[in-house]
């Protein structure tokens, strides 16, 4: 039993932090209110970028959203709007990048899901893997990585507190132990869910953001180029230890190789 607790604790400690790192700033993002909107420069800049988009000045809107993202990288709605602007200027790579980042933060948002799927399909890819019923995919992605980690954390707290209560108050043991068992079940469920999501297609993945990326057989330009990847192609990162080249795998074609770092952006 004790071993299980320690394993659960270690699992939680190892829970993903990348999304959270991005979101940290977003947590402090201003909640729009009439009074705040009048003075908050971020809100005004956002409204200006939206106007550029509405006026069909897409390149300018894309640039404005990029500027905003530098200070608010974890705002999922801003990422989504930036993806829209990039899509309009026909930059499927950056559009996919922003949609994917937004969707990972808010997977239940139907607009983000729709646009990500749309952008993936427009580049010959798909959000829902072949053979997987869409409702199952929606269910699997009904919570973000961080929400799953939080639910696992709550289950862990409940398990520990109920277990401690049962140990300290034997008279309540009969009532507390079933509840602790349920908490342990939830902890296992959320832990398994989170662990399974570690291998999700958009996890540890990158997208080609240049016009065309050359896939080489080794990590420098003297190696043979044996494939080119179009902009917008999502690849899995296999080795990102180098500054100049990353080793990536292309699942659909079943190939792997090295691509210059400048041609990729991590999702």
């Amino acid at each position: 039993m004790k071993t299980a607790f320690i394993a659960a604790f270690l699992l939680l400690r190892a829970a993903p932090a990348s999304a959270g790192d991005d979101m940290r700033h977003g947590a402090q993002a201003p909640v729009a209110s009439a009074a705040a909107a009048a003075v908050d420069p971020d809100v005004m800049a956002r409204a200006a970028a939206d106007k550029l988009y509405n006026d069909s000045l897409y390149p300018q809107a894309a640039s404005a959203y990029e500027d905003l993202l530098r200070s608010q990288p974890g705002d999922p709605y801003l990422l989504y709007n930036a993806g829209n602007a990039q899509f309009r200027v026909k930059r499927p790579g950056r559009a996919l990048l922003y949609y994917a980042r937004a969707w990972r933060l808010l997977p239940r948002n139907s607009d983000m899901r729709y646009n990500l799927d749309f952008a993936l399909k427009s580049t010959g890819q798909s959000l829902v893997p072949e053979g997987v019923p869409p409702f199952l995919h929606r269910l699997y992605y009904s919570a973000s990585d961080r929400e799953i980690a939080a639910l696992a954390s709550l289950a862990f707290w409940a398990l520990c507190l109920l277990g401690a209560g049962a140990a300290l108050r034997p008279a309540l043991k009969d009532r507390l132990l079933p509840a602790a068992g349920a908490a342990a079940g939830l902890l296992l469920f959320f832990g398994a869910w989170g662990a399974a999501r570690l291998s999700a297609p958009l996890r540890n993945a990158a997208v080609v953001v240049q016009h065309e990326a050359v896939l080489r057989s080794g990590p420098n330009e003297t190696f043979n180029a044996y494939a080119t990847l179009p902009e917008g192609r999502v690849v899995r990162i296999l080795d990102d230890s180098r500054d100049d080249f990353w080793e990536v795998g292309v699942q659909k074609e079943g190939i792997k190789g090295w691509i210059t770092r400048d041609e990729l952006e991590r999702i």
Partner: protein
Amino acid sequence: MKLARAMLALSLLLAAAPVRAGLTVAASVDRHEVDIDGSVRLTVTVSGDTANVPEPEIPRLDAFNVYSSGRSQNISFINGRVSSSVAFTYILEPRYIGKAVIPPISVFTGSEKFMTRQIEIQVRGAARRPQPRAGAQQPPAQAPQPARPQGQRPSVPAGEKAEPIFITVEADKKSAYVNEQVTLSVKFFTSVPLTSNPQYVPPSLKGLLAEDLPPVRSGETEINGTRYFFNEIKSALFGLQDGQATIGEAKIIAQLQGAHTLDPMDPAFFQKFFSMSMGQGRTHEVTSKALPLRIIPLPEGAPEGFNGAVGDYIVAASVDRKELKAGEALTLSVSVSGKGHLNTITAPALPDTRAFRYYDTASSYSLTKHQDVVGGKKVFTTVMIPRAEGRQVIPPVKFSFFNPETKSYQTAETAPVEVNVLRGDPSAKAYSFVGGGGAGGDIKTISSDIRYLSRRMGMPVPSRLALALTQNPAHNALPLLLLLGALAYARLRDGLLSDPRRLRYRRAFAAAMKRRDEARRSAEAGDYPKAVGILYDSLPRYLSDKTGDDIESFTLKKTLDHIRRRFPGTGDFSLGEIRTLWEQLEFFHFSSSAITKENAADLVSKYAVLLEILEKEFDGK
């Protein structure tokens, strides 16, 4: 009102629904046999009952260099049904002699993939043609070259020996407005024979969009006394946003003939040149230098309704019929044609009029590249329903653009369009966009697009809570420590409860000391018999707790024997002290009149010392 709501809902559904229209895709070529120095025009026609047909995906063609030549689209609205046909044209320049194959070309709608048939092309050697004489002024070998500011000669410094193979990249402008065309010319020069047509790797572009400008031109020229054969590839570039844009390096990969040489002055130069087969030579790459390009922002003072269009355009409006009944639909087509990047042009705002109600707008465009200038025609088709009977006028539609030639904003407008609206049939049903012409039909998707912007900011509450809970995973150590502490406590407690004898043993000293304190208080209060009585009861109880037996019913001798047996490590001194105290307590207990204050205090003190000694000796058993 009900109709308007239904139409609005329908429009929203049309905008949101994915592409699932039926498509037909066909590919054709203008010839199945071509000379190595010729080209094949490939036309891929995509037709379907949707306004926005997807573009074909041209597979990698090793046997050809491929250039996009343009597109032409027809779109029609008939009784709410949309159909369109887009012809995409490509120029294919063969690279090798022999049989070449154009693999199936696919069109992906997002859910379905449509394929064309495979096409075979026979590439022959170069046809014999009149060759230029040595020393004569050389005209271009193919189509006449358009006027270029830099002239025909490449920039090789005089007196410097030119390389046998080299590449030049030139733009017709050093700066351009956002969305203004810049014509890029990439020229590949060779004075040595090649074993096949070279492979062209276009330059990477930063901040620019490109359109190919086929065909590839070729010709001959003389540089520093050396005669060169050259190929020229042109493309149109458009700046995406103001600032510094970059045209990256262009690359040519050519197969040079081994040790053999080919004299450009040889009358059979072209035959020899193009009849070289693959595998005879070595690969040689030449790369151009990157070229900076400054993109200038559009000037201030844009007119109302300006949407970023740059070029030189005219607009026209037409309707599909001049007379209709009330309740029937009318299709208004507004065309924008001229020079410029039509792909970026958005629909001009329709005039605000009470006479008509506007519904969904679809667009189609045809791209042309005459004289290396990108242009064409974009048609915005809008379904309208007149609100009233009689002669109704569609007011002029205005379209503003920036003309880079005159460096000014201009506004073009259509002529007003007049239609005659007759009395409608009262029994007729309202106009329907759906197939089948009746209520209850299926919604027909006419196009698909991404969803609109989000107006929300920051993170929703569940995400914030999740962030707060998981920001520091070390917090999870707190309940774990609590649980471990509780479990340790419970284990200790349960262990004692399960062994009452052990519990008595552990608690014996504390209980005895407590009784000693009580005796001391009684002695201090002057109640000496009570103090002695408490100690008299306490000593056997302490020994009973320690040994686990009922010492109170034992005699002194039996008690001492029992202690010796139970705790063999107990010293004679301790046993003697027990004996002495036991006897004193017994004496004073039964002779209470003999107890003095000093006796009582002495007994209390002795009892405490004895307990300390016994506790140590019993624990060290």
